[in-house]
């Protein structure tokens, strides 16, 4: 039993260590000036994707439900927090404190949407969550594209037509400009903040999984009827896991929004493709495997950029890597080899200790 506890802790420590090591290596490379500006610009989005992949793994791997609208929750978190930061830029001058509150706002709003969707849908069995979240992601994206919000001395003005119909005073400022989104969000996030948020996300999810709540959620995933017969409240724990997953996606959105000066809801960043992309990270990294999701997110985000020199062949190689990863992750032979290596490693470690 002690062994098991140690194994879990060891596993988690490896994950944390991996992230911190990657961070240190990146920092050294940055200080040496070895990183192209393109790659440098990719660091914060990378953290965003890692958070998204890890948080989606809670829904897909631990809860066992399919969500195809994770980008939607990210979108909600991004816009609500960007709006918050813009509104409070004058009142809260300390960017650290403001960003902290922005994270709370983004997480809370995304969680609220998670709960609103979860309450009706998670009561059902089957793939309804996938269908509803898919629709949610698209609706949110399209809705934000037609929202106009302004603020003047009289307060907030809201319209769904154009900036003129906001009827603002002369001193008014347009906050959300329909398809042009939010411009001038304070640039509060950076690579260090991103890594900290990644670590916090991993901390929350791994600790959740190895707790009473996590056991209940996994019990529901493995056998709903048996879980009910043990007195586990199905809806409560499904909702809890799903809303935590959604709120962490919201946090990813906050990080994403505060890295850009202009935040727009495009199909590219908050659309269906993005949701599928996150799901691909989770599936290729191994469903329920937190560390795998991180590695898959990093590789699949960096790969297209690293292959940029190959021009036309870029996406071809990307596709081949996707297929190769899938084969190597799931084929029985590959799993066998992996296990062999890990047991060898373990026994050699034990041997050393005994000596």
């Amino acid at each position, binding site marked *: 039993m002690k062994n098991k506890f140690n194994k879990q802790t060891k596993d988690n420590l490896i994950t944390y260590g991996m992230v911190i090591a990657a961070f240190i290596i990146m920092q050294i490379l940055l200080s040496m000036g070895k990183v192209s500006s393109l790659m440098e610009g990719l660091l914060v989005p990378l953290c965003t994707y890692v958070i998204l992949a890890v948080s989606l793994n809670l829904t897909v791997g631990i809860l066992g439900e399919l969500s195809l609208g994770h980008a939607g929750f990210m979108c909600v978190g991004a816009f609500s927090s960007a709006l918050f930061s813009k509104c409070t830029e004058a009142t809260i001058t300390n960017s650290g404190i403001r960003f902290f509150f922005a994270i709370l706002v983004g997480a809370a709003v995304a969680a609220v949407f998670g709960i609103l969707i979860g309450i009706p849908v998670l009561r059902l069995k089957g793939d309804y969550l996938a269908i509803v979240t898919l629709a949610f992601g698209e609706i949110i994206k399209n809705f934000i594209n037609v929202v106009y919000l302004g603020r003047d001395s009289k307060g907030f003005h809201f319209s769904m037509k154009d900036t003129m119909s906001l009827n603002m005073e002369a001193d008014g400022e347009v906050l959300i400009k329909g398809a042009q989104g939010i411009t001038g969000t304070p640039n509060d996030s950076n690579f260090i903040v991103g890594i900290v948020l990644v670590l916090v996300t991993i901390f929350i999810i791994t600790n959740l999984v190895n707790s009473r709540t996590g056991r209940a959620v996994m019990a529901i995933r493995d056998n709903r009827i048996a879980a009910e*017969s043990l007195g586990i409240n199905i809806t409560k724990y499904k909702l809890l896991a799903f809303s935590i997953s959604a709120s962490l996606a919201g946090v990813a959105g906050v990080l994403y929004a505060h890295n850009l000066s202009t935040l727009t809801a495009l199909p590219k960043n908050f659309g269906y493709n993005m949701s599928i992309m996150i799901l691909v990270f989770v599936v290729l990294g191994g469903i329920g495997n937190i560390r795998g999701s991180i590695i898959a997110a990093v590789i699949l985000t960096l790969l297209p950029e690293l292959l940029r020199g190959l021009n036309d062949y870029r996406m071809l190689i990307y596709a081949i890597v996707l297929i190769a990863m899938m084969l190597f992750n799931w084929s029985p032979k590959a799993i066998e080899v992996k296990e062999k290596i890990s047991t060898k490693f373990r026994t050699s470690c034990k041997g050393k200790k005994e000596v």
Partner: protein
Amino acid sequence: MALLEVKNLGISFGGLRAVNNFSVQIEKGQLYGLIGPNGAGKTTIFNLLTGVYKPDEGSVVLDGKNITGKSNIDINKEGIARTFQNIRLFKDMSVLDNVKAGLHNQYHYSTIEGILRLPRYHKVEKEMNEKAMELLKVFSLEEEANYLASNLPYGKQRKLEIARALATNPKLLLLDEPAAGMNPNETKELMDTISFVRKHFDMTILLIEHDMKLVSGICEKLTVLNFGEVLAEGKTNEVLNNKAVITAYLGE
């Protein structure tokens, strides 16, 4: 007063009368058997007792408390735990975690305490581990505590399911064909385990079984079901010698 008092329980699925006018009284500490041909409605009765189905009529009283029509989650909290005919373990969780999932409502700490690993988390988890290991020892599963549940051999999976049900600290334990698919040796071992559980935990047990050796070996009283109705009930040897039971179920 009886621990479980079921009166005139009935349910229909469409035009099919699955259970009709079923009554039973089980005293505290009794080992009661429910037998009958396939399709007689035995598992349906379990589902009615545990709240998976709501009865159309009749009442279920557990320990003086009317639990008719409550949800299965609430009924478990009231003190009825069960196992399943087709094993329903949490197969991607460890053996220990399966039992700890059963302890879910016995030990409490909040989700926040779990995430932040506050002192209460460590304290309660330690208690849970001890309790779970204690239960696993009863079923001699302590060696396999860290195995995945799906990697256990069949007989041990059955035992684990009983251990998990007992973890919810029930007043009444329902076993749905615990010996199904077991060889005679395993069945013998299971009989000993059931007798031990009954003594050790002072448990009242209602079991469905087709293995007559097991039924006649450990059950004190029996109810025989046929086509959703009670065909006979009473002391085990009397029931098993009943003419109607022999024709309907046992065979000449």
